[in-house]
């Protein structure tokens, strides 16, 4: 097992180097000039322009810039943001908890509801419950979520007034950041109502972000369950006279979980993509919104560092899923 983990970790190194190279090249290919963007309609003298580019090392030859960049990475230096002049890593860490909190809630909601719906549909295969659940899952799976978010805001925030429109926390509450996670910080603050406010702010973005993973997980659970339920040992279990609940709950679900867990792991990348849309609609101060703002500002260093850090997160999650998979399924280890 240790060998398996070690090999997987070693495999990450070339991939990661490839990612740095790709991100680096992408950024150098971007048209547009952040220095000119900052100047706006007012423009900038050519001398000042050249001096500013030189400050960021853009006057160096390409290979030199790449070597400097990699050397910086080893020191934990991801460069400095053009627009705010602050270290990219610092800016990333300031926003990452917001995304993590939202993504965690979304994946939780999607997993719990998705697995429940999938099991229900599988057990009642062919019934109207099955058809309804799978119909809804199909719609969810096909949803343009940016449109869905707008509809939800109109319905629940502006018409019914049940949920706040955007942001992470009611502005009446002010407490220091401890963990960066609003749910925890608001609870720690002990301010009455703060925790509730954090929850209310999370509801709509969570629903929007969870929509597609929820549908995928429900469908995957259903088909995994159907496969397991059809297998021989299940017949045996049933013929041994075990109660249907035990059959489904204990035997079938446990075995059906393996592909489902993989699916959930794969959704992390989907969530990161969805976060770009969700965060920009709900003004959620996370990395998705940060990335899209930075792309339009041509903030090279941020896009480069952000791409790298996000890819790193996705890779680590995939690795964890792989390892878990190897743990439950010894056959994989030997491959």
């Amino acid at each position, binding site marked *: 097992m240790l060998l398996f983990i070690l090999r997987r970790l070693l495999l990450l190194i070339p991939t990661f180097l490839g990612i740095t190279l790709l991100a680096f090249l992408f950024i150098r290919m971007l048209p547009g*000039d952040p220095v*000119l*963007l900052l100047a706006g*309609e007012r423009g*900038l003298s050519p001398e000042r322009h050249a001096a500013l580019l030189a400050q960021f090392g853009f006057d160096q030859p390409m290979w030199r810039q790449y070597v400097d960049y990699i050397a910086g990475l080893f020191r934990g230096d991801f460069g*400095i943001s053009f627009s705010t*002049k602050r270290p990219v890593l610092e800016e990333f860490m300031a926003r990452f908890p917001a995304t993590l909190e939202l993504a965690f809630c979304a994946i939780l909601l999607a997993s719990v509801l998705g697995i429940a719906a999938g099991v229900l549909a599988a057990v009642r295969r062919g019934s109207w419950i099955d058809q309804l659940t799978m119909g809804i899952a199909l719609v969810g799976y096909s949803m343009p979520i940016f449109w869905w978010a707008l509809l939800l805001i109109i319905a629940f925030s502006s018409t019914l007034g049940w949920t706040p429109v955007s942001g992470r926390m009611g502005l009446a509450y*002010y407490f220091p950041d401890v963990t960066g996670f609003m749910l925890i910080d608001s609870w720690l603050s002990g301010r009455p109502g703060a925790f509730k406010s954090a929850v209310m702010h999370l509801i709509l973005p969570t629903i929007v972000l969870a929509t597609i993973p929820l549908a995928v997980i429900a469908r995957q659970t259903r088909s995994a369950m159907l496969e397991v339920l059809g297998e021989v040992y299940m017949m045996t279990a049933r013929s041994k006279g075990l109660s249907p609940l035990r059959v489904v709950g204990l035997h079938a679900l446990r075995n059906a979980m393996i592909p489902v867990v993989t699916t959930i792991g794969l959704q992390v990348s989907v969530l990161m993509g969805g976060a770009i849309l969700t965060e920009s609609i709900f003004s959620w101060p996370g990395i998705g919104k940060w990335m899209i703002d930075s792309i*339009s500002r*041509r903030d090279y260093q941020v896009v480069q560092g952000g791409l790298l850090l996000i890819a790193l997160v996705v890779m680590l999650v995939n690795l964890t899923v792989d390892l878990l998979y190897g743990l439950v399924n010894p056959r994989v280890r030997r491959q």
Partner: protein
Amino acid sequence: MKRMKALLAATAILIAGSAAAQAKTLVFCSEGSPEGFDPAPWTAGTTLDASARPVYNRLIEFVAGSTDVAPGLAESWETAEDGLSITFKLRPGVKFQTTPWFTPTREFNADDVVFSFKRQLDKEGPWFEYTPGISYYYFDSTGMASGIKDIVRVDDLTVRFDLTRPDVTLLSSFPMGFASILSKEYADQLEAAGTKERLNTQPVGTGPFTFVNYQQDAVIRYEAFADYWEGKQPLDQLIFAVTTDPGVRQQKLLAGECDVVPYPNPADVQNLKDNPNLKVMQQEGFNIGFLAYNTQQAPFDRPEVRRALNMAIDKQAIIEAVFQGTGVAAVNPLPPTSWGYNEALTDDPYDPAAAKAALEAAGVSGLKMKIWAMPVQRPYNPNARRMAELLQADFAAVGVEVEIVSMEWGEYLSQSSRVDRDGAVLLGWTGDNADPDNFLGVLLGCEGVGSNNRAQWCHQPYEDLIQKAKITTDPAERKRLYDEAQAIFKQEAPWATIAHSIVTLPMRSNVTGFVQDPLGLHSFQGVDKAE
């Protein structure tokens, strides 16, 4: 000014009298995150709203709601006979804010003024690049960098600016955000501690509100500065909630989560006006949106062709479809609220038939041209692509085929400056200060060809007038010169002047004392909230 002071003092007493009353908080849902809190290196209005206006003061201030100026941290100022120096008498007894990261030991004096300007002027100084990649855009573009020779501390409360040449437009830049006064004592403390970059993240100023903290991309908090030299503000807390999407901003306003909201969708303005819980302030913006022909490119090098095309433009349709009524058709390159505006001029008529005839008379037929449309929303043009589509249809009606060109914004700005650019370009300008030269000189002067002069238009009679106006001190004479320059502009038509936008600012109806700023800034000095 005096009356406001008295009013402020009165409210301060009132608040002190009812100490048990709840803290008054106003929430401003700003349209973007500030880049930093040092007002000098940034140009975005969003950033200046969050730094220059609440936290700092300037030597000279704009009178609330106008482009007139009033004494700020300087009580008076005087330009020397030869025009080569300006001397400021500073206000005594002004205190800097006390924050967890800085406790001032002295009051504001000449050292602070010298520091605040010299750090932008002195390229070798320790503060010129106190954080990497920083640049003082406004200090350069307003001509201070080239116009100021030195800043001299005469005594504790007197500062003299020595100039390289006489320039009456320089004074009008002192109320701008980049000219805010920072604390030298604080800067020294940061330098000693080796944390110079905090000048940009933990601001200290003399302004009405003290910075408390900033949660990245989400919330900025301020509290009223109790020892503010004009008296404590009626509000106890000021909050900026960053909300980038205009639709969401409006929802939050309706839900009462925001008190004041900038830049609503033009389409929603009527609904907002109809809502009894809200009030909507509107004011003509200090800006111009235009279509600049390339006057060095045939056939646009001929004024009669440019005038003919101008007649083909249905500005009223643009005002309706692009501005949703929140704009007015532009006659001159200056906004009507400017003191230099020439009232006597009238706009080109919208007359496609005459335009077609004029084009034929000029011997132009089967003309194909490009119109550049920027990819971003700007105050003077909420939707350039839609505007370009309308122009395309208008020009098609007079037999001119239009191809719409768009590119990334930074690229757009630099490519459109080029003298050999192909086509007419949609762009605009928001005034930095009240001086007409900020429009007529910067955008249309010969010096700007290849940069800010997008029409690449250098016309000697016009150039002579604006150069003369720049060194004329008599306001009436300056006005006459600018009137004449605008008449020449209209005759030569290097641009089609499209529109001045109307800036709309919706707020909850219990917000009082807010004065809309013609330059598009948002200041919360003197604002209060009724229960």
